[in-house]
């Protein structure tokens, strides 16, 4: 294989051949034989085009592989031919001296071709299944794949269509698609480790993450999103059951630098973990008696059991990270003095915001964080017989209410100033709270707390109504005059927001108006170069997963900083853009409906004192089923198993596309054709009736590299014994906009008839035709041969197909030779002999000069009578079906014609004419 290396970059090619089907290969080989230097560009991962996918070819019944593979190997080994596969020509511009300036984009294959041995380990390890275009979507293929067994070059590629929406949206960059795909394959430990690669907080996120990924899930556009968070919880629970302790031990501190992390919440822990993995000595300072930040204090244990938090934190400490609790850092300079080379401030938002109404200082009016922290420490007394009113609509408010229920409160009320559907809290949490007896008072807001002797006695509230939309687009609630009412209450919990307590650092670091640290949003560097800050202390109160993302980002830039690298322009975010969800749904040949697994909670038992976890974990079966609902949007799930499995260490998931600018003397366009999409003839039921297939699919069923080892019908795997062919599907048909005859369908059908009768001697084959166009050398004889073997040719157009319960198909047709009556016939497999449509890709390639198309959007041959293959652009030639339907022999002759003229053109330019 002669991949164009550095030495060819500066070199001009005599001819650029675009497309490596049989026409493109023939053109390249002949030009190479004549001594011209050729660059052959192919957009797929292998050269060979459509012909290599066929079974045998008419009229000689040669095996298509046997004809194609020598040409493919010859093209790959020819000293004058360079290949660029998985590459697309982006632009061709004619120069003033008649040459062409070409830009070729080499798509990243994520596999280093010089290392890949074609062993297919990556394919085996890959956990993604998408329709296999090389098997006409009859079977699935992996994201890491080798196009087909005879592929040239036989090198794996990894298809990344883009980022899957779930992964793309995750603020922590966790490969959601990756661990879902691994779970689907039952690789639970690998799934766990994939998440662990990003953050130590696998168990906590599996419970308490707001899961923005699920909001973006493409399945969500159908029956409902994949429960990504609960899948993560499943793999974390399963892993922790099997691994009470992390399996790794302390990482060698190779970097010679010490980093201090202030705060042990999600941001601090993630940063400490990532820095320790990189070989830094890391120490975490935590003011509270136990590490975990909000995970520890704000989330009640019925939502996030503290044992899970402890185990997550062990993922950090096992690396040798020391966490000092009960230590409040007040002066950053002290850390510097103690020998820390960098500091990460992740102090969170640990102050409750106030409502700003009268009576907030009364005893019995408390902030949610204060209340939940005390609950989590087990320090909160029973609320037996008490009435509790919670103000707010977020998860913290609902958590507080549910905690109050568990402490025995007689009555728990949530007042929220907007409607229920506007509550930021999880829908299912609100539902759970309601089922536990919480009274939700929407469109209500406290206006004053009434006290008696400094102690809360009741809450005066006002009813609200939606007003004009505010900046968030939601309708701003406005009080309804005169609607005030009073609720007697023993305890009020305000859950209306949190703010940072950064006062201690005011002198050292610049702060924003709301008290958060002022940082460069890209690098998280503060006004003091060696100090970085992140998490809620920077963003204000936000999601855990966002804080995790900040911790990761900080670790990356602290590493850059300590390595003496520039922070500006560092390449932190290497994600590809998200895929188009409509395209993802569009590529599903048949999307089966898979209902989501319902969310389930353990009902609160009779004793309301239980702080046991309420959400039930997915069972293994549910986790597999749920991950099986994933549509593999981005194709590659980024699970990295390919890289782990590759014995040649050839997988390079960071590969980028390359662009090459080249100058060539002449261009041959051999971009081939497209097949008629059979579902555009709805009366034939393709895509709806499983046992209606296309001619290309039958060719795959018959090919030596067939997906199944038999000719079977897709509906039920039955070996068919009565097969119908419908010729002219999508050809000679003005109703689908294609009045042309496709030239090959009669003959490929007759070829398939013979092959079917050869391998299924008992099968009946019936061909419904208009005219049998067996027009070329040896074709008429081939047609007669099929008739002699027993193929039944019926002249008449099929009007429609109906499916029977057993999957058989009833065709309604006009029996012209049989007296013109309308007949019905039952078959168990129907093959639609689909025609050929133009591939319009080449028209977008040329700038400055127009590559003209004919009336049917094929490349126009300007002077077919004398110069077949000549296009509207001097020096650009067309070979094969790009200029109209052709069979293989005519394609090869046509390529020969293009070559003769391209060579003449190159000679002309060389002479400077």
């Amino acid at each position, binding site marked *: 294989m002669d991949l164009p290396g550095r030495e060819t970059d500066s070199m001009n090619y005599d001819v650029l051949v675009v497309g490596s089907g049989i026409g493109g290969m023939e053109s390249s080989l002949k030009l190479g034989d004549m001594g011209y230097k050729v660059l052959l560009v192919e957009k797929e991962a292998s050269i060979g085009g459509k012909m290599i996918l066929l079974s045998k070819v008419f009229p*000689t019944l040669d095996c298509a592989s046997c004809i194609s593979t020598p040409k493919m190997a010859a093209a790959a080994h020819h000293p004058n031919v360079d290949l660029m596969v998985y590459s697309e020509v982006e632009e061709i511009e004619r120069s003033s001296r008649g040459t062409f300036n070409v830009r070729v984009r080499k798509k990243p294959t994520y596999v280093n071709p010089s290392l890949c041995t074609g062993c297919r380990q990556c394919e085996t390890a890959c956990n993604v299944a998408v329709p296999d275009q090389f098997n006409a979507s009859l079977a699935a293929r992996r994201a890491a794949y080798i196009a087909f067994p005879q592929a040239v070059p036989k090198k794996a590629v990894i298809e990344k269509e883009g980022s899957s929406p779930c992964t793309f949206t995750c603020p922590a960059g966790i490969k959601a698609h990756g661990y879902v795909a691994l779970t689907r394959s039952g690789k639970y430990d690998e799934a766990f480790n994939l998440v662990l690669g990003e953050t130590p907080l696998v168990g906590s996120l599996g419970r308490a993450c707001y899961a923005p990924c699920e909001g973006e899930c493409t399945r969500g556009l159908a029956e409902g999103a994949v429960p990504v968070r609960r899948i993560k919880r499943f793999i974390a629970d399963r892993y922790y059951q099997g691994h009470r302790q992390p399996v790794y031990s302390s990482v060698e501190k190779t970097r010679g630098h010490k980093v201090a992390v202030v705060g042990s919440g999600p941001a601090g822990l993630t940063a400490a973990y990532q820095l320790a993995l990189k070989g830094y000595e890391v120490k975490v300072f935590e003011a509270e008696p136990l590490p975990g930040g909000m995970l520890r204090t704000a989330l009640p244990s019925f939502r996030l059991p503290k044992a899970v938090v402890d185990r997550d934190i062990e993922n950090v400490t096992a690396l040798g990270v020391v966490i000092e609790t009960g230590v409040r850092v007040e002066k950053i300079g002290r850390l510097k003095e103690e020998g820390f080379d960098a500091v990460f401030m992740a102090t969170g938002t640990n102050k409750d915001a106030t409502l700003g109404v009268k009576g907030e200082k009364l005893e019995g009016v408390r902030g949610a964080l204060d209340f939940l922290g005390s609950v989590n420490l087990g320090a909160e007394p029973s609320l037996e017989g008490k009435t509790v009113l919670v103000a707010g609509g977020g998860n913290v408010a609902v958590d507080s209410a549910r905690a109050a229920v568990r402490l025995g409160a007689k009555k728990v009320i949530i007042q929220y100033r907007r409607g229920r559907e506007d509550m930021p809290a999880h829908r299912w949490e609100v539902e759970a709270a309601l089922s536990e007896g919480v009274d939700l008072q929407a469109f209500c807001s406290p206006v004053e707390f009434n006290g008696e002797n400094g102690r809360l006695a009741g809450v005066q509230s006002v009813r609200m109504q939606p007003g004009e939309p505010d900046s968030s687009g939601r309708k701003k609630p406005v009080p309804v005059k005169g609607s005030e009412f009073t609720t007697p209450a023993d305890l009020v919990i305000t859950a209306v927001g949190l703010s940072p307590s950064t006062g201690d650092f005011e002198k050292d670091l610049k702060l924003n108006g709301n008290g958060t640290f002022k940082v460069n949003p890209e690098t998280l560097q503060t006004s003091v170069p060696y100090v970085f800050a992140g998490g809620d202390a920077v963003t204000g109160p936000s999601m855990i997963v966002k804080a995790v993302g900040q911790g990761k980002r900080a670790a990356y830039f602290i590493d850059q900083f300590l390595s003496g690298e520039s922070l500006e322009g560092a390449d932190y975010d290497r994600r590809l853009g998200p895929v188009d969800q409509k395209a993802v749904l569009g590529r599903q040949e048949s999307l089966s409906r898979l209902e989501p697994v319902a969310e389930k909670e353990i009902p609160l038992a009779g004793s309301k004192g239980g702080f046991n976890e309420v959400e039930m974990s997915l069972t293994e079966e549910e986790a597999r089923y749920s991950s099986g609902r994933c549509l593999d949007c981005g194709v590659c799930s980024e699970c990295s198993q390919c890289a782990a499995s590759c014995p040649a260490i050839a997988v390079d998931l960071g590969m980028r596309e390359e662009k090459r600018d080249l100058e060539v003397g002449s261009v041959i366009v051999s971009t081939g054709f497209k097949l008629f999409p059979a579902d555009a003839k709805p009366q034939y039921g393709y895509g709806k009736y499983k046992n209606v297939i296309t001619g290309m699919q039958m060719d795959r069923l018959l090919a030596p590299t067939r997906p199944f080892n038999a000719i079977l019908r897709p509906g039920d795997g039955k070996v068919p014994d009565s097969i119908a062919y419908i010729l002219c599907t999508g050809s000679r048909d003005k109703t689908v906009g294609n*009045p042309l005859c496709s*030239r090959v369908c009669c003959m490929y059908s007759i070829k398939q008839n013979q092959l079917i009768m050869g391998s299924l001697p008992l099968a009946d084959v019936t061909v419904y035709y208009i005219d049998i166009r067996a027009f070329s050398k040896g074709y008429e004889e081939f047609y007669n041969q099929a008739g002699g073997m027993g193929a039944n040719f019926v002249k008449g157009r099929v009007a429609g197909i109906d499916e029977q319960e057993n999957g058989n198909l009833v065709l309604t047709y006009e029996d012209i030779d049989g007296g013109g009556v309308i007949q019905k016939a039952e078959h168990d497999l129907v093959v639609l002999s689909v025609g050929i449509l133009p591939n319009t890709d080449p028209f977008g390639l040329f700038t400055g000069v127009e590559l003209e198309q004919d009336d049917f959007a094929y490349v126009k041959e300007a002077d077919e009578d004398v110069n077949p293959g000549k296009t509207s652009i001097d020096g650009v030639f067309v070979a094969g079906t790009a200029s109209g339907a052709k069979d293989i022999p005519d394609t090869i002759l046509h390529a020969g014609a293009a070559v003769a003229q391209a060579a003449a053109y190159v000679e002309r330019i060389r002479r400077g004419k």
Partner: protein
Amino acid sequence: MSDRRIGVYICHCGGNISDYVDVEAVREAAGREAGVVVAKTAMFTCSDATQQEMVEDIRENSLDGLVVASCSPKLHLYTFRDVAKRAGLNPYRYTQVNVREQCSWAHTDDKKGATEKAVRLVRAGIARTSLTDSLEPVIIDTVPRALVVGAGIAGLRAALGLSDIGISVYLVERENAVGGRVAGLGSMYPHGRNGNSIISQLVSEIGKRENIVAYTGAEVVEKSGSVGNFNVKVRVGGDKPQFVDLNVGSIVVATGFDTFQPGNSEYGFGTGGVVTLDQFRELLDRSGGVPAYNGKEIKSVAYIYCVGSRRDPGVEEAKAYCSRYCCNAAVHASLLAVEKNSRIHQYHLYRDMRTYGRYELMFDQAREAGSIFLRFGEDAPPVVSQSAGGGLRVSVKDLLTFGEEVEMEVDLVVLVTPMKPRQNGGLVDVLKLPLGKDGFFNEIHPKLRPVETVVDGVFICGSCQGPKNSSESVASALAAVTQAASLLKKGYVELEPLMAVVDRDICRWCGECARACPYGAISSEEIQGTEVASVNEAVCKGCSGCTPVCPKNAIDLKGYTDAQVKAMIEALAE
């Protein structure tokens, strides 16, 4: 015991072989043979990956012989020789064993037998390989000139194409004028250009080329030499012919076709009002205004398709093949006719309307222009008779109206007849070109080598190879240009060293071998006073006709020596 180090590869051919031959059993048997150090199977031995594997095996194991049991050597002999070459092994130490065409495909009903046969064939291949020597191809410099035979549209375009890429051309035309059949044509489909103007354009361009020499009224009468270096004798002129000797590297044959003439009684052919499509075209091209026959306006025409084609070949020299161009040509003629006389009634009596590809549009236009199409079955051809009114009566059982008997009276019946192979008797003998079953010149392979013939360096194009329309002929002519140029631009050809070799110590020149040689490759020479046989390597084809007739066993065939063949027979019989 053998001191050879041979690698043997058995191909599944993706099931083509392994569905019927137990390739694993063949591999095991091969592995037991003396001298075999590597024995493997592969899904596709021809795939790039397996080729790579073979290269590595050959290098790592210092193999000195290679056997691949796969398909016919016609397909992959060169593929695997090239593998050997890339690995540093002399390519003539490679033997291809055909277990596909000869075993799996031939014995689909007998898997055990097919396997047993494959084992024996592979053993024979190993036996031959054990006795192979390194051979070097014979290199012959090519002459950068080409001969084009026939100056119709294909020959003219081929000559220009060769000239365009710097190859000098001799153009030889049997007739006294160049241009062939297209020169006589008016408007041609699909672009409506006049045939004679296209030819004039080509001829004027040829006139400008210094590197094209054209001979008209000329015929090729002798050819000697071989690929890359042919000597051709051309006879120019009729009564007082002159002979020209040409030295060329390759020959492009573009001698065109003849038109099938219906039998005298067929559809009333020969009587008034029944003409062939060619005659009708001529009539149309000539008529300035409303077309007339015998001075009378042609008001109605019936076309009868497939006259002489798609028929049982026993009948009146009819052809079994479909002649490809005629449906299009007839439909096109009807469009020309209606252009000249919009009131004309036209009936097309056809079997299958083969207006393939884009030509379908002409079929649409013809129907829109009022042509009526009737379909007859092979067993019920139309009947033409004289009508009482002096016109022609055509009756047909029309399948499109479900077998209705339709009768029509028309002024003219046009018989749509096929192209047939041209009578090129002399040329076939001179060039030794093979004919296909249909009588046209035959290519080696319609897909792999569509313009090459079994005579190296001699190419065919245009309708001498089979029916084609004008633009298709031009495309194939340019494909022949490409093929000839890839031979001549390289400057040399490599010939197979599988040639006769004379043991001069034993030979006592008796001339038997020279008499047996069909190529005239053997003559006598005097070596140190003794007369012995001498083989001209440029001419010897390695046919082995000489070896069995030598009374002294002094002549052998390199690559297939007596010893090798004997070893193969013994291995087969073992």
